[in-house]
């Protein structure tokens, strides 16, 4: 039986390809591009309205002299769980994955499930990512702490980069280390080959 680390490695590769596909699908035709633009145009004023509220909330929190970090932490953790559950439910609802005869004759069903769930979760997060960053940014600005947001963005970007360019060896014992979760694993330099995308 394939190891969990190996399945996670394959799952992340599957999720990357699925994300690439869904992004390309979203912008494939002129009609779809226009639909995305229309969606953005429709909701942008609302975002700015909520952004100003977040800014005021940040100012108020600063005036009171303390940020409820514990509460925010718990809420954020719950939010992550909610997204993962929603992503998993979407996968169950969708049924058989596209290209199942390739996926299931090349890797384990567990890897496919992990890949589809990660893709679905990231897609859901992607829908709310821009408004979330906007609100968090406005709140941090209001609180006079713009570096909080910048640090979070840089941390996410760094983590993604570490995982993106790791070679298959990180599947084994060095997996968590090379992804920056403890251990002494170091990122591997980006490869120039045609396979560097995974």
């Amino acid at each position, binding site marked *: *039986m*394939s190891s969990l680390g190996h399945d996670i490695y*394959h799952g992340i*590769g*599957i999720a990357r*390809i699925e994300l*690439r*596909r869904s992004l*390309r*699908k979203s912008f*494939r035709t002129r009609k779809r591009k226009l639909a995305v633009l229309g969606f953005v145009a429709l909701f942008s004023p609302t975002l700015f309205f909520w952004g100003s509220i977040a800014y005021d909330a940040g100012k108020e929190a600063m005036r009171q002299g303390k940020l409820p970090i514990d509460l925010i932490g718990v809420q954020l953790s719950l939010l992550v769980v909610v997204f993962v559950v929603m992503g998993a439910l979407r996968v169950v609802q969708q049924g058989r994955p*596209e*290209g*199942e*005869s*390739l*996926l*299931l*004759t*090349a*890797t*384990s069903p567990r890897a496919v499930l992990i890949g589809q769930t990660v893709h679905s979760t990231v897609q859901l997060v992607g829908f709310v990512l821009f408004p979330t960053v906007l609100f968090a940014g406005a709140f941090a600005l209001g609180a006079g702490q713009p570096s909080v947001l910048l640090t979070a963005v840089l941390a996410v970007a760094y983590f993604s980069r570490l995982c993106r360019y790791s070679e*298959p060896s990180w599947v084994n014992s060095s997996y968590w280390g090379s992804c920056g979760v403890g251990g002494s694993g170091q990122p591997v330099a980006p*490869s120039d*080959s*045609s*396979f560097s*995308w*995974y």
Partner: protein
Amino acid sequence: MGSDSLTEAHDRERGDDTDLAIRTNELTKSFGDHVAVDHLNLAIPQVHVYGFLGPNGAGKTTAMRMLTTLLPPTEGTATVMGTPLTDREAVTRHIGYLPEDPPVYEELTGLEQLSYAAFLHDIPDEVGTGRIKDLLFRFDMTDYADRRISTYSKGMRQKIGLIQALLHEPAVVFLDEPTSGLDPRAARTVLDVIEELVDEETTVFLSTHILSVVDELADTIGVLHEGRLVAEGSPDDLKHRAETGEERTLEQAFLEVTADHQESEDTAEIQS
């Protein structure tokens, strides 16, 4: 050869599975009351082209999906390269599968698709890049590798699907209607590749309803009708009418074999 005598012949041959590429014992798949594959017994040697013939709905694809671990059998057992189907991971290492509708993604380029397949098969970068390059060249697809698959013709998709099935150099390749919808030139390429595969010591399990394809390529032909194996033998065996000694075309043989079984079933139904 009737299905009972075929079963007996397989029983006699039954023995060491390690010499066989594919062995099935009473392999059956039912969907509710409908029996799609009915007690199928096959013993296919290694480095062999096995032509799996049958009309639409005969159960060819269902049998193939069971042998590629995509469908669990309702009854019976099977091994691929001596490995039981229950050991899914080991079986999938030995097989390549090209279904009738190739599993390729329209949003990717040909090269991205093949790189993805290489990644899933755990082929190291340096090996995979070389193999992809060679196979693209062999299939005359090098110039189109960076184009999105959505812009490909049916034949080009079929070629990418076939390259994908061969990328990890499997010992057994399952091809479901590999020439369907292809123009004569593309079909010729696919047939030439199948011949080359056997030279490279690969076993090919070829499902089709195009008789000329199996007549040209197959070492053994099995005819499936309503889920049952109703005839099996070399193309020459099937063309030779044992009762009268006269020769017939493969098409005539196919029609006679499937009609015989249809008639006997109808008679049995009326009697019951």
